[in-house]
């Protein structure tokens, strides 16, 4: 594995170039340009606001700014996870020519897909900051948790991305399965709601490794609290495990890519 990582490091310029290509191609020739990065999070935030408004009406409680801020803060990482996993899943198949013709570490493709989505995430984050300033959310020392949460998020996306891209190369219906999970995953992950709304049973929702991470973002940015440490540790451990497992899985299948694609 050390050798493989060394090789990946050797090809870092290629990783950079492929990421650059993915970003450039996505923004070139699109009417919306950079708005594209913001559209999806905006839609998620709007649907979140509607859902939260529904809760508020049903429970006869006023809709608080913190709730809207919480939905907005969680929408971005969710949009990142969805788009990075979607692009990563297709990354090997859509680069068929390169997979069968030229040698280099192929994990560059899913990783580049994730880095390109991360670029979108950064663009959207700039918009989010403005939105939060308008809501007057303010800031606190708990913001120092954000980098740790981001690392968890990227590790998780990269791990899942490598698994689905390799599996998608061998089985063509994997991409449809992934699409279904990404569409309905939002109901199993606390984006529009908080796990705490379910009381005791909320912990079952937190078993989804994405959930504690999203809750963590909500806690430290919107509510100025520390994330739940146990659940965060669980989420980080899962992310590491999935990342390493995904990498080993990918590397194990890689020699067969050229003949199976």
């Amino acid at each position, binding site marked *: 594995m050390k050798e493989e990582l060394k090789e990946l490091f050797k090809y870092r*310029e*290629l990783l*950079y*170039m*492929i990421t*650059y*290509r993915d970003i*450039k*191609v996505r923004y*070139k*020739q699109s009417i919306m340009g950079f708005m594209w990065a913001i559209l999806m999070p905006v839609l998620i935030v709007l649907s979140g606001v509607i859902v939260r408004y529904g809760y508020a009406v049903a429970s006869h409680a006023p809709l608080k700014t913190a709730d809207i801020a919480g939905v907005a803060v969680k929408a971005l990482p969710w949009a990142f996870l969805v788009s990075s996993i979607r692009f990563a899943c297709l990354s090997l198949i859509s680069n068929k*020519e*390169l997979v*069968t*013709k*030229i*040698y*280099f570490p192929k994990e560059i493709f899913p990783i580049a897909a994730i880095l390109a989505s991360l670029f979108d995430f950064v663009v959207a984050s700039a918009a989010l900051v403005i939105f939060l300033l308008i809501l007057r959310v303010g800031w606190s020392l708990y913001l120092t948790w954000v980098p740790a949460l981001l690392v968890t998020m990227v590790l998780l996306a990269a791990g899942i991305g490598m698994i689905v891209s390799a599996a998608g190369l*061998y*089985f*063509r*219906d*994997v991409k449809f*399965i992934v699409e279904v999970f990404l569409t309905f995953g939002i109901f199993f992950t606390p984006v529009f709601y908080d796990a705490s709304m379910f009381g005791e049973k909320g912990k079952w929702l937190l078993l989804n490794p994405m959930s504690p991470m999203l809750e963590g973002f909500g806690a430290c940015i919107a509510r100025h609290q520390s994330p739940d440490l146990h659940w965060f540790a669980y989420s980080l451990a899962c992310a590491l495990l999935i990342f390493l497992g995904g990498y080993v899985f990918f590397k194990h299948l890689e*020699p*067969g890519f*050229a*003949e*199976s694609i």
Partner: protein
Amino acid sequence: MSDMAIRMEHVYKKFRKGEIYNSLRDLIPALTGRMFQQRELSEKDRREFWAVQDLSFEVKQGEAFGIIGHNGAGKSTALKMLSRIMRPTKGCMVVNGRLSALIEVSAGFHGDLTGRENIFLNGTILGMSKREIQSKLDQIIAFSGIEEFIDTPVKRYSSGMYARLGFSVAAHVDPDVLIVDEVLSVGDYAFQQKCIERMKEVLRSGAAVLFVSHNLKIVAEFCHRCLLLDKGQTVLMGTPQDVISRYLQKPNGNAVDNNSGPVSISSVRIRNEDGECILFRSGEQVWIDVEIAARRRCNKLSVTLYILDDKLAVIFDTSTDLLGHGEFDLEEGDSYRCTFEVCLNLAGGTYYPSILIYRRDIQTVYDKWEPATTIYISSDGGVRGIANCFPHVIRQQICQASHADAAEIGWNSVVPDLNR
């Protein structure tokens, strides 16, 4: 063994043919089906085949090594294993230094990016560093000859421009081992010449070149050593001449087996003063020996010699009958020999001398070897096309529009002897 560039030792590659489950929807029923109904092991074995078997060779630095063989002989599989795209099932191989492959020169291109961006993208894919590309950028652009369009997205390029840009990038990688696979068959004449020039340059710099092509003329001219593969197995390794003649013999061997007619060709040999050969100079005198054997009695036969060019067009045709030797008869068990003395007034290229046995009055072809052999004509240059008429320039004049009397001067200065 410090000058060794590539070593392959007993390399095997197995492929599976037949049904491959490429969706989970198909796989899951197949797996459950397999659980309930035990399949025989032999069926699994039957679905597997060896694309490459026990392949061993070494290439030294500064050496050009050719691999030839019919389609499906395992040439490309061998190259793909060398370039590490596929992993061998068994065996080991060593590549010393940076390996670069001229396989699909524009594989890494993306249509939406400009030519310049694609140079960087393709360059890094081929293993160059960004700084290296930056320093060679002007050279690459100049080489491609499309400076004008370098900032246009490549999807607007013509296919020729596409190939040219791809090749200029690939040509500027400085490899220790260069792999060339059939890339010459796609380009036009100028592109092929550029490829060959580049390969020679790479060789001179001390790198090894591994060359796979169906273009036997280039293999014969360019390679130091050659390997013939057939159905994944090594048939012969040696000088290009030996290996190519062995490659060309094979279909002939089959023809004899299949032939059950009354008369058949048993051998065709082409030789010059030094003996049997396949590489000739333009204008050289050669002898083509034809041997035929009769299984049954046959009358009024003649032997036809015709030559095809590389586009399989007949460019020359004659026969023993037409040359005034009349028709001949053969009894059962007879054999017949004749030799054609031919002057190869051909321009450089690949040609296929072919032989057939013919009876004119009943319009019957008894046996036909097309091609009987393949020959390569090397020409000193200066002529192109098919025929070589051995031209010489005996007078040359420059008519200058501004001086009416200049023509006279030019005439006299080039051929002063004419007036004497």
